[in-house]
């Protein structure tokens, strides 16, 4: 077998000290998948507890810690780093025809900072847990006895990892594109990652500052947010959402970026509306900074502020809609084949449509007042985060898996898992739209008897979901145990990352590629995958 980045150099030390973006991407992938597993275990525990009103398997205090950890782990340890730091790290330089990211050492530093943040979070878990919800709302968070200090410190540290990744990608996209690759010959994945990186760099520092202010209030009793010390609890919500709303787009934009890659490949067709998709990413990134107040429609902020934030919130729906329509138009007159990545991409289209459309309910002031902080919101953001980002992540994972590890997986089992995950997801979360509409508040340990049938339904859905993920873990593990068997270009894709070996050699390309055609030039028949001469 030819030497590749997995086999040379050898040894644990060579992995731990690597500055190769591919290895760092793989280490990130393993880490975030572990975080996803951990967050998933907490999710299952939540759903089991909610099988009955009152106590099922745990006390209210434990339940509050479990849903906080589910949220905090899924947000800070899984979904924010998920696509950019793992898949993005691996494929972005390959897509651009580069040898590595612009700052390889910074890249490794970002990984170790992530690990440090994760350890702090684990520290918070074992020293009593955190019971504030992942949103850390004051003054609850500055007065509760749980390990809020460690957890906020963890999120603070993780923020730096995110910022470093963002800086790295911005520099890489600006400076390391292969000769001939103009901005509009860049794959749309790079546009999505670029828009994400801008938000990471501009918004994350605000979260860091806010979390430090919480620590100062907790440790030194400086009155910032707690009214008993002369602070303003609503100020915290402004600071927090000024980061955390753009952060929603840190999560979804990379997902959209993957969909823009997968749909053309499996429709074997030029992307429809390249510039519309590229500019809409930038538009989403820009408007995302101006809508944070829609999390606070019932917080007591002024009616004028509510009106402005409501209006701007509706504007952000437009570029998202434009993307969806362009992806569907890409499939028109294509040659569509339904392998696992495309199944996940189609799941994304359907689920993200519901996630986006239910956002209209929450943007409309009068309706939001009723739905705010109910299960409707829980269902909405799970449709966007899990139905959107996670489905896109799984599409990307299955799409690039042969490239990353040089091995194919069982297509049959991949389809079974995709079907189970799609069905399980809908059973789990569609029922929650109804629960919330009927007035079931979120973060409730106990609930009215009338809600039980829907809760049971939702819990059963979570088991179907879990089964789907276990099957996935199984066939991916099996694929890793066998020798390399993947061709360089199993999907017949035209992107640069497919023009090198699977897995790629240590320095990506033997020769710097020269880019002469567009990234989605599928109008010519693509012959069966062939090994590219090295």
């Amino acid at each position, binding site marked *: 077998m030819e030497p590749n980045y997995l086999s040379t150099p050898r040894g644990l030390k060579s992995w731990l000290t690597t500055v190769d973006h591919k290895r760092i991407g793989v280490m990130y992938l393993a880490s975030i998948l572990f975080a996803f597993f951990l967050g998933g275990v907490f999710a299952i525990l939540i759903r089991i507890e909610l099988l009955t009103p009152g106590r099922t398997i745990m006390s*209210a205090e434990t339940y*509050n810690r479990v849903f906080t950890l589910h949220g905090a782990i899924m947000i800070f340890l899984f979904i924010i780093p998920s696509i950019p730091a793992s898949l993005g790290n691996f494929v972005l330089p390959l897509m651009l025809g580069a040898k590595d990211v612009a700052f390889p050492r910074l890249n490794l530093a970002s990984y170790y900072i992530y690990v440090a943040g994760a350890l702090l979070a684990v520290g918070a878990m074992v020293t009593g847990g955190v019971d504030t*919800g992942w949103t850390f*709302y004051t*003054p609850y968070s500055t*007065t509760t006895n749980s390990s809020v200090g460690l957890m906020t410190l963890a999120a603070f540290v993780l923020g730096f990892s995110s910022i470093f990744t963002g800086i790295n990608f911005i520099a890489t996209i600006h400076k390391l594109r292969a000769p001939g690759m103009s901005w509009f010959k860049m794959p749309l994945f790079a546009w999505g990652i670029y828009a994400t990186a801008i938000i990471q760099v501009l918004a994350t520092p605000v979260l860091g500052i806010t979390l430090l202010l919480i620590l100062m209030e907790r440790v030194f009793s400086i009155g910032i947010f707690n*009214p008993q010390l002369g602070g303003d*609890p*609503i100020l915290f919500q402004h600071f927090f959402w000024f980061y955390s709303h753009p952060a929603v787009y840190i999560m979804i934009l990379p997902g959209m970026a993957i969909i823009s890659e997968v749909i053309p490949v499996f*429709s*074997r067709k*030029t992307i*429809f*509306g*390249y510039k*519309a998709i590229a500019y809409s990413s930038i538009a989403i990134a820009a408007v995302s900074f101006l809508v944070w107040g829609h999390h606070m429609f*019932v*917080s*007591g902020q002024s*009616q004028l502020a509510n009106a402005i934030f409501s*209006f701007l919130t509706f*504007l952000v*729906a*437009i570029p998202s*809609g*434009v993307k969806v329509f362009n992806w*569907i138009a890409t*499939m*028109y*007159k*294509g*040659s*569509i*084949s*339904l392998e696992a990545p495309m199944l996940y991409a189609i799941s994304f*289209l*359907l689920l993200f449509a519901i996630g986006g*459309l*239910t956002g*209209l*309910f929450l*943007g*409309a*002031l*009068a*309706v*939001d*007042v*009723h739905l705010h*902080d109910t299960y409707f919101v829980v269902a909405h953001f799970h449709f966007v985060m899990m139905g959107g980002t996670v489905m896109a992540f799984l599409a990307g994972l299955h799409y690039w898996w042969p490239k990353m590890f040089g091995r194919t997986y069982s297509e049959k089992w991949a389809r079974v898992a995709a079907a189970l995950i799609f069905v399980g997801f809908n059973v789990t979360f569609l029922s929650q739209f109804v629960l919330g*509409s*009927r*007035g079931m*508040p979120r*973060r409730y*340990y*106990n609930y*009215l008897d009338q809600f039980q049938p829907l809760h049971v339904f939702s819990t059963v859905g979570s088991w179907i979901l879990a089964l789907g993920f276990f099957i996935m873990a199984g066939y991916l593990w099996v694929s890793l145990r066998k020798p390399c068997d993947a061709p360089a270009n199993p999907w017949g894709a035209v992107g640069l990352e497919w023009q090198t070996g699977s897995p790629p050699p240590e320095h990506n390309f033997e020769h710097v590629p020269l880019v002469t055609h567009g990234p989605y030039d*599928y109008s010519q*028949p693509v012959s069966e995958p062939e090994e590219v001469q090295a």
Partner: protein
Amino acid sequence: MNAWIRSIIMPAQGTAYAGQVDGLWLFLIWVTVFFFLLVAGLVTYFVFKYRRRGPNDRTPNITHHTGLEVAWTLIPLALVILIFFWGFRSYMEAQVSPAGALEIQVTAKKWVWQFEYPDGTRSINELHVPLGKPVKLVMTSEDVIHSFFVPTFRLKQDVVPGVYTQLWFQASEPGVHRLLCTQYCGRGHSDMGGKIFVDNEKKYSDWLENGGDAGKNMPLAQLGALLYQSHGCQTCHSLDGTRGEGPSFKGVFGHEVKLSDGKSVLADENYVRESILLPQAKIVAGFGPIMPTFQGMLREREIQALIEFVKEQK
């Protein structure tokens, strides 16, 4: 069709305003159904119609269509602007309370709702309002942020320490409406509920005068059990010995209780009474002085009922 959707998805309407909200809500449901069917229909149709026939399929090189891009930008834009104005107009109606509304003070605290009426009457977790009269709530919190949510009224407002927030409504349906806390506030969050009793004018003023007739012919211990639930005692004081924010009632009565100042006291009728009315007077060792006073909120018979109830927890 709309009535059927309402019956499945929406809570009952307790105010005329709720009907107004539901109009927009239904419209949004139809918008969602339309666009979802559009997306799902096109995807399904394309997947079937343009499925791969062979390894050498050729596809046309369609790169963009400016007319389409403009259409699917401007049509949704017009639609969301309509939704924005619709939502904003209804919202403002719920924001501006009419002059002369009956004003009730609301104080939230982990994990009870306290109400004070213009004539000085006070109640806990039970809000009584007259039917068809505008009622304005002026709300604040003593500890963390809570949120006042009445699903049948389609109303919600955060209750924030250090500031006053407001809410007004005009109930059009007599009967009992659910009150829920929707801002996460800790262990008792999901038990921080209450009931809103909407009564006709006569019944309402009768309640203000006499406290209603619920429990009049009830044995003391049974009334005590009812008050234990309705006044939020259960959020802090368990009956099975589990430790909460306050000591459990189990096996307290007739036994010595260790206090935080090192002394100890026999838990008799006078001790329980004092603990209800002046909770800060004697603090049980190991607990914080966080219980609100119930002075002026309980009638003599209700205090006796609670004492009987505590006695029964052996």
